[in-house]
């Protein structure tokens, strides 16, 4: 039996109550909206890209503790990364949640979401911000969270 504390770790609760990089961003040059139609969670991710590097990143929206903390920790982990590095990080994060592969060490604080693996219904909460980030990076417009493939 898995303890609830494995899911709602202190770091996750902290970021869900006090999300970092939260609010509108004046300097953004890439934006995407994410929506999870199953739970009604909405999120906007904004980026300031310089060439290939993410200089600033912020988000707004409403969601559960998992999706808010995931967005908050994501923004912290992205500053100064290139597109390619961000993509790589997403892959590692995805693997962590689905348990398909060993999660890479470079995930750092993001590893706190490892408990989500035991709650398949909540995986999409944790990945909504990341899918939205990818849409902003690819500038592909509004993104719907993938709900069945994860």
């Amino acid at each position: 039996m898995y303890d609830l504390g494995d899911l709602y770790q202190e770091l996750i609760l902290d970021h869900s109550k006090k999300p970092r990089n939260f609010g509108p961003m004046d300097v953004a040059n890439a934006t995407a909206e994410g929506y999870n139609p199953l739970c009604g969670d909405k999120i906007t991710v904004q980026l300031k890209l310089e060439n290939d590097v993410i200089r600033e990143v912020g988000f707004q929206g409403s969601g559960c503790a998992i999706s808010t903390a995931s967005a908050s920790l994501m923004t912290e982990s992205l500053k100064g990364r290139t597109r390619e590095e961000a993509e790589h990080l997403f892959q590692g994060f995805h693997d962590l949640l689905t348990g398909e592969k060993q999660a890479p060490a470079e995930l750092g604080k993001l590893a706190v979401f490892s408990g989500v693996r035991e709650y398949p219904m909540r995986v999409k909460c944790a990945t909504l911000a990341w899918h939205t980030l990818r849409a902003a990076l690819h500038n592909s417009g509004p993104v719907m969270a993938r709900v069945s493939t994860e």
Partner: protein
Amino acid sequence: MTALSAGLDVNKLREDFPILRQKVHGRPLVYLDSAASSQKPLAVIDAIRRFYSEDYSNIHRAVHQLSERSTRRYEEGRIKVQQFIHAADAREIVFVRGATEGINLVAQSYGRTHLGAGDEIIISALEHHSNIVPWQLLCEQTDAILRVIPINDDGVVLLDEFERLLNGRTRFVSIAHISNALGTVLPIRSIIALAHQHHVPVLVDGAQAVPHMKVNVQELDCDFYVFSGHKLYGPTGIGVLYGRDNLLEEMPPYQGGGDMISSVTFEKTTYNALPYKFEAGTPNIEGVVGLAAAIDYVSGIGLDSIAAYEAELLEYATRQLSQVDGLRIVGTAKEKAAVLSFVLDGVHPHDVGTVLDREGIAVRTGHHCAQPVMDRFGIPATTRASIAFYNTHEDIDLLVRGIEKVKGMFR
């Protein structure tokens, strides 16, 4: 805890539901999600098992003994449904997959032959997506217009607004009997009477009503009534469309196939009589057998007793939840049944649902397939506890204790 509330021996009735005996995450299961789907009594499980073991074959086809028996069981099921909702004739009972398919059938078969550009359909702001989207599809196909009766802050449909919406272009009204998201009982008698003054037919979506109250379609004077078996303690994949025979008679078939024809040549096909015209293909035979068993089961308990007990439990739950600091009940109509939707300050329903699940408590979280209702109250989602006659006062106490645990974690 009252063991003999409103004349029901609930603890004894609970023994009829094997699934309720289990533990979830080490805690006794508290099932508060019957509005999504109710659990099945042994009477239903055994009826299906016995049917497959003893009588099963295809129906309306062969002269052999098993086909005869299966056909009889299937048609007895139809008569059982007819008596259950007090329809005038068994020809008016069409078996479908569920309430959703019933509404789609009427929207496509009746709607496409009776509505044109500029015609209007009225629904309410409380509808489940299944009573919104089929009409939007019809509007796309016919250029008809969808009108919506607003609700007030209690989640009550505004009758005077409905009267204002009714006009010479209104061609159809489709309305829930009970709201799945809030539990509001709609004033359908008044709605039907008003619509009929304008000669407009009315479909009632009874998916949430049939498990909780007696329904008499002739007394209601509705033109169509739909419900699903799986919310009535019966199997999934079986549902009922009731339609007045004169309306069903003039409607074209919804799907083509076997059983819905009386003769087929490549030049011309003649359709079968009611209700077979609307039952193309081999139907859900064991579903009908299971539904008939479910109807026998609830009729044996008595829907009046069920309604009285559930009303008492809902009142108790409303009182207990109202005392939880930071909890707000969404949907506070006077006329309510079986549903308690609520939000908790600073905690998203998904987190509420996950913590409650670990306590063995099954609730639904999300928008309950009624996004416009959520938008009306300016919230993305609610936590919904829905009750059935197999729930107890203790279940409600455990829910309240679970909510206190949620608050402890997130504050």
